[in-house]
């Protein structure tokens, strides 16, 4: 039996296969195929099956992370999309929240509105905030807009009416008519995609769903075909922004749920591995080539958000709350006219990339600084597969040295310190925004460059413990193997939590729970256990922010309602330091979270060793610069593949493996646990 996770990134497609028979991982990295990601997916699957000596029939599970939706939005390569909107308010998307994109940069632009104004059609209909019909939608009007839509030739359309979260009847009548008349047009309606009040965010989400819908649908179809051609008996499950899996059908209908899925699989994998290592409170530190993703995990649960942005567009779907900053291995360093050093956000990207990679890059990057200091192998990377041009790296860093008036090594240290300082600020942000002290947390480092920088970033923040997983470069693919099936169903309620509203509340909760169960019945055949939990977004009347509080999933009565209300006051007190126990509480949205728990594979363990690494784990030594305090130290280089459970070693040390390099500075020590994680801690004084 074999379980496979395939994560497609901008540069590489990572495949991780776990053979549950042998208890071994098979990992393969191949270049992504940008024009059709499914080619590399299928090739990668064939490769790991060969490596494991298994046949396609043995595959029981295929988890997949894709950037097709994300790229279509960021590169603005979606479908020609039309908008049907309540008459009189055609410019909700143009006006947005009326804020300018940058406080001081007068040349910054708003993100392009995805529906050009000539494809925006006003529809004569109107609801009041109560749901009462102010202007009836007539069949003749539906006929008229359907004809206009047909004539304009759009591939997709979003139906966005004011107050449709209250009553979706007008939107669904148009949707039904379009399904009959224009079956080839991809249709999203706002009351389905994001049924919550605040029109700009809801309309934006629905329009994005339609903009990327046809592109994602085509991809999903091709992927299904290729997986079938490869002979796999199971279809792929796709990771969503909330860190849960969904079927390809569900994703084809609501591709918007995958837009922020890139980093979410890594967070799921990090949370799972840390849990096995007995660590529940951690901050993930996923540093790649162009950006770094940071996420707070408290008590094993990653922070979540109801709304996030991508490319300047708000997206109202639940997601893992990952904070992304533009600092990575490819971040370019320069010196400004006032003598200040800058690192990022400009990036050399995959091409030309860092000077050290020899693809024509000449400008100094964080990676080049690491090569100059010997932290990254100055001769080759990827286990020897990729030569490193350390002379080019030095030449590039010398330009910064000249600007700063320092030596090349000092300039390289400066680049590293400033990059670490930017990332430390991000780590502090995700913790203090949640009211947490980062010093109580473990920093979990992954991504190609995370383990290179983690110790210094941790030191800058005052954190004293790091966890580096066995395969930092492919943690996302691992996350795909341990994700559960998950989706969220929302309805707007907007009534007070009072006995009068109990019948309506019970009815609304029952409808959501039924929807969640039906979804699980169809989606979660791979799951062992199904559950549907119910939450409410609650606030004091006229507040403009909500807190999530749990609700019983059935049969609310006066006493359980009273405890829900008490729970809200208590949470408000906890989150904000005060409560208004005499104030009514308003339930803005109701949410049912449908969750199917997928059986987790046993993680392979590394064999037990002695306290000292075996002699053959030592690859050699090299001079590594550890900053002003220590200078260059002759540093042992260890082979990650040869480390055994129980091995302990003190810094300075470098641990090399195919997909990453870990730096253990002087004053830190590392131990290897049963799963092969490196637990790196500051030495007691």
């Amino acid at each position: 039996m074999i379980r496979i996770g395939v994560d497609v990134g901008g540069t590489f497609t990572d495949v991780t296969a776990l053979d549950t028979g042998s208890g071994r991982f098979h990992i393969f990295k191949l270049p992504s195929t940008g024009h059709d990601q499914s080619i590399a997916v299928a090739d990668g699957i064939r490769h790991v099956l060969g490596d494991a000596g298994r046949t396609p029939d043995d595959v029981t599970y295929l988890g997949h992370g894709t950037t097709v939706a994300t790229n279509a939005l960021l590169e603005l390569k979606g479908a020609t999309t039309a908008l049907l909107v309540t008459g009189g308010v055609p410019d909700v998307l143009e006006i947005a929240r009326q804020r300018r994109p940058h406080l001081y940069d007068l040349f910054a632009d708003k993100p392009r509105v995805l529906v050009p104004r000539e494809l925006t059609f006003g529809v004569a209909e109107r609801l009041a905030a109560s749901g009462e019909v102010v202007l009836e939608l007539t069949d003749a009007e539906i006929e008229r807009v359907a004809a206009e839509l047909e004539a304009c030739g759009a591939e997709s359309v979003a139906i966005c009416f004011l107050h449709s979260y209250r009553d979706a009847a007008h939107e669904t009548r148009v949707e039904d008519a379009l399904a009959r008349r224009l079956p080839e047009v991809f249709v999203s309606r706002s009351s389905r995609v994001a049924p919550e009040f605040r029109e700009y965010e809801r309309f934006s989400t629905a329009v994005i769903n339609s903009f990327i819908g046809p592109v994602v649908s085509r991809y999903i179809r091709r992927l299904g075909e290729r997986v079938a051609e490869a002979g796999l008996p199971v279809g792929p499950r796709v990771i969503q922004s909330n860190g849960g899996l969904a079927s390809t059908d569900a994703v084809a209908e609501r591709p918007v749920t995958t837009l922020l899925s890139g980093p979410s699989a890594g967070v799921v994998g990090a949370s799972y591995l840390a849990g096995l290592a007995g660590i529940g409170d951690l901050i993930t530190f996923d540093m790649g080539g162009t950006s770094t993703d940071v996420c707070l995990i408290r008590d094993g649960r990653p922070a979540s958000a109801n709304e996030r942005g991508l490319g300047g567009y708000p997206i109202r779907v639940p997601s893992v709350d990952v904070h992304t900053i533009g600092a990575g291995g490819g971040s370019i360093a320069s010196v400004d006219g006032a003598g200040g050093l800058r690192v990022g956000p400009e990036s050399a990207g995959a091409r030309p990339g860092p000077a050290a990679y020899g693809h024509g890059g000449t400008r100094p990057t964080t990676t080049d600084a690491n090569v100059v200091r010997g932290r990254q192998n100055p001769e080759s990377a990827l286990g020897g597969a990729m030569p490193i041009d350390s002379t080019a790296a030095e030449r590039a860093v010398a330009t910064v040295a000249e600007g700063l008036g320092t030596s090349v090594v000092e300039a390289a240290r400066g680049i590293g310190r400033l990059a670490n300082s930017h990332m430390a600020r991000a780590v502090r942000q995700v913790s203090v925004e949640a009211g947490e002290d980062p010093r109580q947390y473990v920093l979990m480092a992954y991504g190609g460059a995370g383990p290179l920088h983690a110790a210094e970033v941790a030191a800058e923040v005052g954190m004293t413990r790091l966890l580096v997983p066995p395969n930092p470069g492919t943690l996302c693919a691992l996350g795909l193997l341990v994700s559960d099936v998950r989706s969220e169903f929302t309805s707007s309620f907007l009534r007070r939590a009072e006995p009068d509203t109990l019948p309506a509340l019970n009815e609304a909760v029952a409808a959501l729970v039924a929807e969640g169960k039906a979804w699980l019945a169809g989606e979660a055949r791979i799951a062992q256990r199904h559950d549907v939990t119910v939450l409410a977004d609650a606030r004091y009347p006229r507040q403009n922010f909500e807190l999530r509080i749990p609700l019983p999933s059935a049969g609310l009565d006066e006493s359980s309602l009273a405890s829900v209300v008490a729970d809200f006051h208590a949470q408000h007190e906890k989150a904000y330091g005060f409560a208004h126990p005499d104030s009514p509480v308003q339930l803005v949205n109701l949410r049912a979270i449908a969750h199917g728990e997928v059986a987790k594979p046993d993680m392979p363990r590394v064999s037990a060793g002695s306290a000292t690494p075996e002699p053959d784990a030592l690859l050699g030594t090299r001079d590594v610069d550890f900053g002003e305090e220590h200078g260059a130290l002759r540093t042992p280089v260890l082979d990650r593949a040869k480390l055994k459970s129980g091995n302990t070693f003190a810094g300075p040390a470098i641990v090399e493996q195919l997909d990453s390099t870990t730096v253990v500075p002087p004053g830190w020590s590392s131990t290897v646990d049963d799963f092969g994680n490196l637990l790196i801690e500051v030495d007691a004084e």
Partner: protein
Amino acid sequence: MTETVVDQVSVQVIGNAMLSVAEEMGAVLRRASYSTNIKERVDCSTALFDAQGRLVAQAEHIPIHMGSMKGLVQALLDQKGAEQLRAGDVYITNDPYTGGGTHLPDITMVAPVFHDGGLVGFSANIAHHSDVGGHVPGSNSGDSTSIFQEGLRIPMVRFMIDGAVNEEVLAFVTLNSRLPEERRGDLLAQLAAVHTGGIRFAELHELHGSAVIDAACAQLLDYARRRLEVAVAAIPDGTYTAADWLDSDSPGQEPIRIQTAITVAGEEISIDFAGTGRQADVAINVVRSALEATVYYALKAALDPDIPANGGFFDAVRIDAPLGSIVNPRPPAAVAARTDACQRVADVLLAALAKAVPGRVPAGSHSSITYVTFAGPDDEFFVYPEVIAGGAGARSDRDGLDAVQVHVTNSSNLPIEALELEYPLRVDTYELITDSGGVGEHRGGLGVRRDIRVLSGQADFSAHADRQTFPPLGLEGGGDGTTGRFILRPGTETERTLPGGRVSGITLDHGDVVRIESPGSGGYGDPFARPPELVARDVAQGRVSADSALRDYGVVLTGDGAVDAGATARVRGDRREG
């Protein structure tokens, strides 16, 4: 004693750490505050200062706060003297004339920070309070004529003494607010924030040593100053001038001129507002701190948007403003709606800078705080305030932004659905205004039309807005933007355009509609140089009318909206010659 010098990278790393402290203070303030204004609209800022009272790190959200922050600690040191400051004491003020504030709703709080028994700096924040008394709810009326009408003036007093909240001051402030519980909560949130900032700042001193932190602070200030000097040095020496007008401030009064002369000599820049008109009868006066914030905004936007937010910037700029003018009023001139005039000051500064750094400054923006209020009895008494955005100026290489807030403010709109859920009002129309952007090779951004219908029995409408007489100016041959206006009952027999932007006490009946139109912005460059295809696109998208396409752009369109290239060339050629 040798002076400590810290290497440039360490300075920047320490700067980032101090910015993190300011950000943590902001997080504490938002989490602990009561009011939507702070929690949701983030109308607050937090900062650290060095022992000399110079602002070294600010987490900024609103440009205008820079001024209050900068003046705050200087005022504290001037009034109390460093020797009077004690650990465990926290000061509070909101006064524009004595405490560095810009208007009364912005309450600032500051704590001296001690380490090893010595004063090492200050932790401070500012928050916009939703009511501090005065003659209108919200303490933010445009028509007050003296600061004494605008609410409680809080001098520099101690909010906390020796670690205990000064309950007398707290009671004094809350008694003067229409929302005392909210004031109490927000003030205690500000206190929690300065407390956190103080602890963290002291930790940095402990970690690096005070000599290093002090040196890093000095070098951070120096760096910001150098950044501005580098940008200024690239400008040809000379004096660059501009002037514009504020609409009449009250019936029968003349408009007020805003004038500036920016003089550049090498790395030095000075700004003189000589020639600027009288202080206003109403609450649009700009005190020193608000003027400095506006100068900071304009220079940073035009010259280097990434200059760090610290006080070193001001060491490189000299600002002169005639006493008794709208940009340096004599007390007790009213100031609540000072942003109306700050916006025009920003316009004038940018217009002058457009001559200094051609191509890097856009044409004139709507630059109006189009502020409207609907209020009246319903199930309970309601007050709905809103500020409507307009067009931002066309740039040298692209069109202006439609429907955005500009310059010293950047506040959000209230969603239509939220508005209709909360108030007995309905939004009939919310759209961009065709032809409101100034014509040009690059078109000005469009203004906004918002029609609001009263659903309750009766409601009261009041508003203040500018640029209803003088339009946003075009640049380099671009046309002006449109002016804004308020129209009662549009499209009915009793339709009436209000006489100006400052109105109050207008009674509306059930079913009445008020149409609010905000200004579009100026265009950039010769409209005949605009590619005809872009004009055709604008017409197809309803941003420009077919009439304007022909009249202003000389573009002839065929029946299906395509460019008639031959006819267009003839029209453009004829008119150029004619």
